[in-house]
């Protein structure tokens, strides 16, 4: 992954961290004094100055919590850690890092879900196989 590190966000128009509804020009290393109405986001050409960064990414907190509780694995906690970073990164203008944290949060709850499904289904199949074996020698069945 060669995503842009925080502080090296490409120059362009981004949501102004201090004035909701406004866009401010980021010259690649610092905010400039140039601002614009957010309503221009509705223009078809908005993607030229905010590619793929038109809204705050979701932090995946709910699936992170549910996989922590239900999947019996520590990966869900990693997902919650990533979820906790999304909002702050976005609000401080680190859009690339915020998007990365969001993707990481999603990745870790998916890992938690996937690994636990394999473990639980495998275990269940094993127990049913054992159960059949036990039943064949048990007078209860």
């Amino acid at each position: 992954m060669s995503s842009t590190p925080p502080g090296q966000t490409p120059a362009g128009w981004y949501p102004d961290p201090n004035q909701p509804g406004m866009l401010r020009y980021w010259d690649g290393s610092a905010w400039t004094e140039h601002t614009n109405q957010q309503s221009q986001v509705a223009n078809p050409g908005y993607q030229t100055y905010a590619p793929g960064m038109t809204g705050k990414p979701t932090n995946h907190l709910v699936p992170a919590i549910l996989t922590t509780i239900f999947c019996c694995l520590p990966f869900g906690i990693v997902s919650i850690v990533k979820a906790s970073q999304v909002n702050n990164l976005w609000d401080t203008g680190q859009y690339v890092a915020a998007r990365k944290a969001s993707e990481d949060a999603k990745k870790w709850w998916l890992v938690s879900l996937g690994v636990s499904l394999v473990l639980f289904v495998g275990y269940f199949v094993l127990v049913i196989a054992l159960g059949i074996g036990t039943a064949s020698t048990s007078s209860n069945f």
Partner: protein
Amino acid sequence: MTAAVYDLSHRDLRGPAAAGVAATVYLGAVAVTDPFSAMTVRGVAIECPIHAATGGFCPGCGSTRAVHELLHGDLVGSLVCHPLVLPLVGLLAYLWVSWIARRRGRDPWWARTPTELPAAVPMLLVVGFVALTVVRNVPGFEWLPPPDVAP
């Protein structure tokens, strides 16, 4: 309510409705079963595979029992089984109600999406889960074990 049914926006409530149905089915199943006894399949007791394999307690261990205690009105019992379940049920219920409010085109001052929550909320959850997992599993610190190990 009648107006909302004929409002186009009611279609947006399918997500919250599906979540509500899933939660009701889960809570109903936990309420009428006994998570303190091991589940058996064909006469074989099923233990949690993680606990069976490692002997340790996972971050969610005891949560089903905590939900069961909560549904039977025993708040202290719920906190003993898993101290984070009570606050988490409250948090998820709050996010669900917020979700419905937003989907109905309203924006009450109290409504928040998960992303809009203060950063302290997920950070406290991380601290809580890590601390709970450590105190349950580290030798010499095994206070607060789940009362009876079962799935």
